[in-house]
């Protein structure tokens, strides 16, 4: 926390190098959120840039009531929600849980060696995640990829902890079911 405070103080004093290191430190987190929520490839980088511009503009008002990374993640999440609302993308579509079965996806040929098989499972998993409702994708990413706690995810997504836990449980169960429909149990045990 002390490091974050020093960093913020330096940025507010006009040190652009300090801001550059803030970006380097948090761009992975921001890109995870933006890339998972926004499917339009050409808009992703611009949204990431906008997020850091907003961080810079609002940094003066940051009171260290939460971790700096949580605050930045919240800005990224809200920016994506605004973008999706403008594009009229449904934020939670329960139908997609039932309708998009594995049969509707293009078939992918299984390659013979184990490495290729593993790559295939990974690719399949990414495809399955992208087909999920946005909130499911988000909790999976924040929990597993960014190792955030339930409390932090609750703060970022502004939802009760019970809802976050429920999304996480349902998302993982659904992923397992979908992968099981394609692969033999032993293929999944990598």
């Amino acid at each position, binding site marked *: 926390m002390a490091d974050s405070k020093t960093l913020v103080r330096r940025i507010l004093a006009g040190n*652009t190098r300090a*801001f550059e290191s803030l*970006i380097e430190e948090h761009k992975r987190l921001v890109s*995870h959120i933006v890339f998972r929520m926004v499917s339009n490839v050409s808009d992703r*980088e611009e949204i990431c*840039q906008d997020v850091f511009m907003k961080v810079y503009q609002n940094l003066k008002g940051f009171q260290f009531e939460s971790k700096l990374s949580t605050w930045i993640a919240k800005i990224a999440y809200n920016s994506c929600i605004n973008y999706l609302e403008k594009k009229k993308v449904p934020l939670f579509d329960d139908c997609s849980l039932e309708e998009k079965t594995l049969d509707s996806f293009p078939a992918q040929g299984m390659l013979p060696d184990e490495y290729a098989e593993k790559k295939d499972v990974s690719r399949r*998993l*990414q495809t399955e995640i992208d087909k999920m409702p946005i909130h499911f994708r988000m909790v999976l990413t924040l929990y597993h990829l960014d190792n955030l706690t339930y409390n932090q995810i609750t703060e970022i997504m502004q939802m009760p902890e019970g809802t976050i836990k429920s999304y996480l449980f349902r998302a993982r169960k659904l992923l397992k079911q979908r992968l099981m429909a394609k692969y033999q149990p032993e293929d999944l*045990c*990598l």
Partner: protein
Amino acid sequence: MPVTHLTDEEIQDYLDGNLSHQSRIFLEAHLKTCEFCQVALKQYQSLYVELKQDQVFDLPKTFAKSVVAKLPMIEKAKSGFNYSDILLGILAILITAFTSIYYLDLGSLGKRLTHIPLPQFEFATTLVEAAKGLVAA
């Protein structure tokens, strides 16, 4: 007698470390004897490993520099708003007011309206008279 297997929720809670000490001991004891649940656990373990793979989220190496390069634009926009926008607003109001007075002759209309007598109990009649006067003018 039907065999009771672990639920998805129990396996996930186990992997997340959300189980109490007692529940964990019970679950591990069950896992030692149940092949079906062992497979289910391994599948979830694999899924957890895969979910940690960070392979598709790449921003360019120059990303931070490109954002920093845009900062002067923010500063300019910030400082520009306070002065130029307010001045422009005031100027627009003044131009509108002067144009209205000049073209619509609102100055003389105002004078005429103030000279129309308004008796206390004949207000409606007076208004009609005033309107007639304006039409005649």
